[in-house]
């Protein structure tokens, strides 16, 4: 099936599955007003002559309509859900000492509890070299957490990156460890050594025991650590290319399919022309990911993901975008590919005022998934964003 056929089929399916009522259209219009006519802000507070506090944050309320088709049913058995949601609500505090060193602490509240997101100390060793230690987004594919949440192309990150994260470090894409980053005007190279579980759990990842405890290990024995690295090159004119490679010897729980956690090695590559929303009139992005799990007795498992994204500027300060992706959950087994299509449009009232595109933004996106193992699915999301 060609991509065009896939797109046409998905739209036909959506029309059949979903009857968008007049009330829903009104809802979409109402939600669209939330981010209209806003302007950017940037918070910097001098604490002393040597200390500066940078505050940042953002909120992403959304309205979603999801349809899970039930292809086995003869009647109207589709699973349909409407609802409001909060994708993210973040506050970031960054304390800097003379631009030499500092601490960054990000919290998120969209789950109902205030949860740590990033939490690390950093030191600028030279003008080009920075070291970090703590809980932070380690080197990973470019479309993952290294793309800031307020600069996501659509309403969510690429499906192949989300799938890769769910099989490696987990959805938050952070881990406890240390890294060193070398950055010049054109080249960025980063190397991280980290625990490999991607959580705050004391039993597996956050090793912080004291000698007064009954058990100074108090958790699993360590089978190995994880090493991750990225290299990117900015060729100018909006063109960027990069590579990622990593190995995780910690056998994290997330990789367990019944026989225990597995080691994995992974690699990725990207080629971007216009990395972030609103950067330039036309944008194109290609991403590839390979993830290979070691044999746990039930054979190897090799996953591959490919993604292509394009956007064109419309409405003066908006863009229309389209993304097509395929993710093979095991290339050694036939019919394990999931296909994802995303189409939508974003508009930035802040860009209309000459401010950054991400400060105030409204995005409408339609997602379609077809799979050998799962039923077809449709998801329409209208998301507002305020970021400061």
């Amino acid at each position, binding site marked *: 099936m060609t991509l065009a056929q896939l797109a046409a089929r998905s739209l036909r399916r959506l029309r059949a599955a979903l009857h968008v009522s007049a009330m829903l259209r009104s809802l979409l219009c109402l939600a669209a007003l939330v*981010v209209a006519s806003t302007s950017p802000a940037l918070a910097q507070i001098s604490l002393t002559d040597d200390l500066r506090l940078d505050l940042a944050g*953002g909120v992403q*309320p959304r309205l979603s309509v999801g349809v*899970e088709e039930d292809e086995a049913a003869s009647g109207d058995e589709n699973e349909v859900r409407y609802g*409001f949601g909060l994708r993210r609500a973040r506050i970031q505090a960054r304390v800097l000492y003379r631009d030499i060193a500092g601490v960054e602490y990000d919290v998120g*509240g969209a789950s109902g509890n205030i949860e740590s997101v990033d939490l690390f100390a950093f030191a600028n060793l030279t003008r080009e070299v920075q070291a970090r230690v703590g809980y932070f987004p380690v080197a990973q594919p470019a479309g993952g957490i290294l793309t800031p949440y307020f600069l996501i192309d659509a309403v969510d990150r690429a499906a192949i990156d989300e799938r890769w994260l*769910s099989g490696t470090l987990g959805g938050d894409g952070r881990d406890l460890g240390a890294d060193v980053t070398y950055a010049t005007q054109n080249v960025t190279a980063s190397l991280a050594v980290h625990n490999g579980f991607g959580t705050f759990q004391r039993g597996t990842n956050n090793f912080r025991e004291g000698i007064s405890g009954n058990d100074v290990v108090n958790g699993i024995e360590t089978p190995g650590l994880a090493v991750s690295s990225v290299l990117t090159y900015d060729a100018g004119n909006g063109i960027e290319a990069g590579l990622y490679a990593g190995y995780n010897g910690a056998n994290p729980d997330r990789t367990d399919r019944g026989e225990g956690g597995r080691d994995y090695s992974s690699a990725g590559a990207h080629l971007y022309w216009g990395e972030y929303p609103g950067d330039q009139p036309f944008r194109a992005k290609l991403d590839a990911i390979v993830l290979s799990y070691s044999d746990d007795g039930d054979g190897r498992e090799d996953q591959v993901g490919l993604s292509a994204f394009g956007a064109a500027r419309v409405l003066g300060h908006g863009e229309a975008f389209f993304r097509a992706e395929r993710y093979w959950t095991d290339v050694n087994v036939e019919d394990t590919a999931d296909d994802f299509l995303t189409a939508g449009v974003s508009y930035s009232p802040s860009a209309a005022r000459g401010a950054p595109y991400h400060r105030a933004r409204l995005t409408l996106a339609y997602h379609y998934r077809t799979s050998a193992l799962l039923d077809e699915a449709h*998801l329409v999301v209208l998301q507002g964003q305020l970021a400061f």
Partner: protein
Amino acid sequence: MTRLTLLAVVALAMVAAHPATAQTFQLTDDATLKLSGGIQPRIGLGIEGADDTERLGLGLRRARLQFRLTLLEKAGMEYDVDTTPGDLRSVDLFAFYDVSETVQLRAGRLPPAQARGFVPQSYTRIDAVDRSPVDERWASGTLGSSGRDLGVDLTAQLGETEVQVTLHNGTGGFSRDTDNFRESGSASSVTRGADETAFALSAAVHHGGSSGLSFGGFASLNARGNDATALDDTTRSYTSGGAHIYYGERPGSQPLRLKLEAVATQYETIDGVQQRSAGVGAFGAIRAFPHGEVFLRGDRFWEDVDTDGEIYGTVGASYSPSAALGRDYRDLRITASYLVRRNDDGDIGHLVKLQGQIIF
């Protein structure tokens, strides 16, 4: 003697404290960040007749921080957190936009239109130490005790009349399974297993003025239902309404205050069973001494109108050291109250509370 000493220590600490003020940071020419909050420590003595138990203890009713970022004096985000569970919990979390000088739009987790005596009565301006039992019981059977939900709403100030209309999920929580719909296209189920297409719509009106007399009402249709409305594990939709008339809404606002309110809820019929609940409450307060007031409240709530219901009585007094310093009554306040409850089956419960309050 020990109990009295504890009460005296808390009272003394409150009286000796100095009022603080909200902090506003000018971030840029067009952006401000306002930081405010409050804390309500208390001592309580409870005697439960149903199981003949007593409990004396210190507690923290609320400890709140509120961050409010405003851009161009028109839009922004508000984030309230509460620390009393021992960790940090989100309370309000929404984006707002002033459509005009009199109309504001909000989206996120917010208090929908509801009974005036519940969340619309700010935690800083509660008449006694807790909100009216009628309102607390109403909330526990509708949206849940937080009184918040994910949705969008519009509030218009038309002269002395405020009108609020909210379209919301109707579930009141943060669970991704039932409340916070935020799935992505790569999820194995874009609906997260939920088959749910109903919303809730709520509206409230409140007319107030400089005379101290205010009145209004609310109506709510929740087509979805939630755990708070469940009967035998089956969530029920409901319609609810209420009315209020106040003479002096806020503590310390005038020498004599009177408040009347009523709420009623009708739930969806399940297996031939239809529940209707109702509640009425009356409150009065007089400025019996400078910068303080003595109050009395009586409430009755029928969880099912076919039963006798529960009766609640509250009597107490509050004093505001901040008002004595010429500041707002709520900034520093100490409140002592005695509450008694008679259950439908005749069991009696008693509760004595001494609560301090510091708001900044």
